[in-house]
């Protein structure tokens, strides 16, 4: 029974250690990931029903296709991937550790036969001479060798960048570290948003999923919002918000945030993400009566009828911050006499006043001359709010992944063995070497190495 159990456990262990599993998991992850790029993720139910129909949507729901990257089966795949990584490392790491820490310092013929870089030299010099010269040569041209004397033979062994063997494991562990960071972010962090109107503050934010707001534990106030447009268009070039962090009414931190430059406080980060207009703009006009030349400053909101000296009135019917290439412009409708009978559907002359050209309206030749002095539009700033205590763990993982994969690919563990032994009345030298990466380059190096060794010994 116990033997049977043992073989079952062995099977499981072998299954999770196998490279085939790793390759199959990678390909399965690649193939299944496609689903989520074809079917949009996390949309409201109506959108799916509209696009695919009710029955297909039910199928999607059953298979978790509408949120597949968080589905049980995708997470299972990721778990298999992680377990596979751990098992592979546990299985192979001790062997590599032994290889690096307790290398085979005594090379016998069996080892030399496995090496593609191998050479035999025979010289008439004495064993002691050859041994001394060989040690000097290896120290100078490769690295200080370990010397073992045994049964009348002298064995030399030297190695370089042995730790390059760990690059692969660093890369593998880095993936696990990234997973841990991602899980930390999911468990202890959140993603939320909040809109803050200029001049107001908030102490809670709204999570992307869920209806209850999250308390921040402090307040965030938006003092000012500004947006800059590309010339002649309504496309924003840059937008910024002046944010202030308040705790118990005390200003703690001030920062102007913009896209790509967020504000962080107590592990919570505020990102500039969107903006919008809040309520109607207030306009300040200078109105001059042409006949009398009297000038008056008036304030108006959109659609509000404002009376003017001389019995007339006007209202702002439209406004844009970017009128063709001319900047801010208001469309104004003027009523000659305010108290006349206003018939429904009656139209009055309307015209455009440009903020950038205050003198322009005098050429229109109407009863009043308007110039737009200023406008005040209140904005709200749209902030993405993220708390992610795992993000530094993720960055650590990423750093290790770059370092690990670079050393795995570009650093090579190189080893050199020499065996010096008496051959009849002469001295024989066997020299062999191996590199675990970039063998062609090492072959060239070894050819040079053995050639110089020969000349060195024959001197």
């Amino acid at each position, binding site marked *: 029974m116990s033997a049977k159990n043992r073989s079952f456990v062995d099977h499981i262990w072998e299954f999770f250690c196998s490279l085939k599993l*790793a*390759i199959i998991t990678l*390909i399965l992850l690649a193939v299944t990931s496609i689903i989520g790029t074809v079917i949009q993720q996390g949309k409201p139910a109506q959108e799916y029903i509209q696009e695919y129909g009710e029955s297909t949507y039910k199928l999607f729901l059953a298979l978790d296709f509408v949120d597949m990257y968080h589905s049980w089966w995708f997470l299972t795949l990721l778990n298999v991937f992680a377990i596979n990584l751990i098992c592979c490392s546990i299985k192979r790491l001790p062997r590599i550790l032994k290889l690096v820490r307790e290398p085979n310092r005594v090379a016998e013929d069996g080892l030399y036969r496995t090496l593609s870089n191998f050479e035999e030299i025979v010289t008439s010099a004495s064993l002691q001479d050859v041994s001394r010269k060989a040690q000097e040569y290896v120290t100078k041209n490769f690295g200080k060798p370990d010397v073992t004397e045994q049964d009348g033979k002298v064995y030399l062994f030297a190695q370089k960048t042995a730790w390059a063997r760990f690059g692969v494991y660093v890369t593998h562990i880095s993936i696990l570290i990234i997973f841990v960071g991602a899980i930390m972010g999911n468990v202890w962090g959140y993603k939320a948003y909040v809109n803050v109107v200029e001049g107001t503050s908030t102490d809670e934010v709204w999570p992307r999923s869920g209806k209850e707001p999250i308390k921040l534990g402090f307040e965030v106030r938006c003092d000012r919002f500004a947006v800059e447009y590309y010339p002649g268009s309504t496309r924003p070039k840059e937008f910024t918000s002046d944010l202030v962090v308040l705790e118990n009414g005390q200003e703690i931190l001030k920062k102007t945030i913009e896209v*790509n430059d967020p504000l962080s406080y107590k592990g919570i980060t505020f990102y500039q993400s969107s903006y919008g207009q809040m309520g109607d703009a207030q306009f300040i006009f200078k109105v001059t009566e042409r006949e009398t030349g009297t000038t008056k400053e008036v304030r108006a909101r959109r659609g509000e009828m404002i009376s003017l000296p001389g019995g007339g009135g006007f209202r702002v019917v439209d406004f844009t911050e970017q009128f063709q290439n001319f900047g801010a412009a208001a469309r104004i409708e003027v009523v000659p006499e305010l108290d006349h009978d206003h018939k429904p559907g009656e139209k009055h002359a309307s015209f455009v006043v440009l903020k950038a050209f205050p003198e322009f309206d005098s050429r229109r030749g109407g009863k009043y001359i308007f110039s737009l002095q200023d406008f005040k539009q209140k904005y709200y700033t749209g902030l*993405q709010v993220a708390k992610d205590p795992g993000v530094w763990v993720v960055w650590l993982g990423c750093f290790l992944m770059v370092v690990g994969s670079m050393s795995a690919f570009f650093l090579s563990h190189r080893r050199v063995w020499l065996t010096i032994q008496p051959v009849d009345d002469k001295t024989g030298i066997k020299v062999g070497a191996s590199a675990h990466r970039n063998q062609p380059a090492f072959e060239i190096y070894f050819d040079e190495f053995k050639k110089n060794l020969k000349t060195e010994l024959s001197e």
Partner: protein
Amino acid sequence: MSTNILLYKITLLLYFASTVLYLIDVIGRRTETGKIGRWILVGGLVTHCATVATRYVATGHTPVVNLHESLSFFALAIVAIFLIFDFRYRLTILGAFSCPLALIMMIIGAAATTPSPTINPALESWWFPVHVLLAFTGDAVFAVAAIAGVMYLMQERMLKSKRFSALYYRMPSLDILDSINYKCLTFGFPLMTMGIISGAIWAHSAWGGYWRWDPKETWALITWFIYAALLHARLSVGWRGRRAAILAIVGFLCVLFTFLGVNFLLSDLHSFRTMQGG
């Protein structure tokens, strides 16, 4: 913008000339034309760099925000990576495959010119040039791997059927093609990894999330999975030659889909429309 368009056209002509010369060399077996083709290609690379530089000066942003600019940048990366490989291996035939690829991208790019685009504020970051440079260089290395893969399969087919075309005599040995496959992998994979990571750092600073499973990210990850599979198959299971060549081609098709397919068939943050803030 006019200087940059003029330079673009000169580059296109130079690429065209070297493509023709490379093809004459390979099909007509005239080695001297290939040598001229190489020098013209180097000239093309220089004017191409000047094109990108002038465009950077003219627009004030890293010029990889729309289809025209991205294709041009990808072509530049392919030519540069090919020349590096050519320096090492002296493979005219690789030129006969890479040059037309770059030329096609330049021609499509020429058809897709857009007047000075406006860009989304999110692109105003130092991570943007870092991200595109790493991603496109990695992609170009994978392009070379795929070309070596195609040559491998063609040559193997000729060997099996014993019908040899003119190309056969100019092809490097299967061993060299296989070692190019591996070399490309060892350079392309870290580059791609860093490309994805730099994108994640940038996304984190712009939007507060390093990963959002948007289609472009996901496709980059899919491609990464494929190359990781190829890498393990090569290094540990011992896949060589044919199967490695096929996987390199599949991987590059994924790269192309990540680059173009996602933009045209799927919707996401990386689409050129969103980049222009529209």
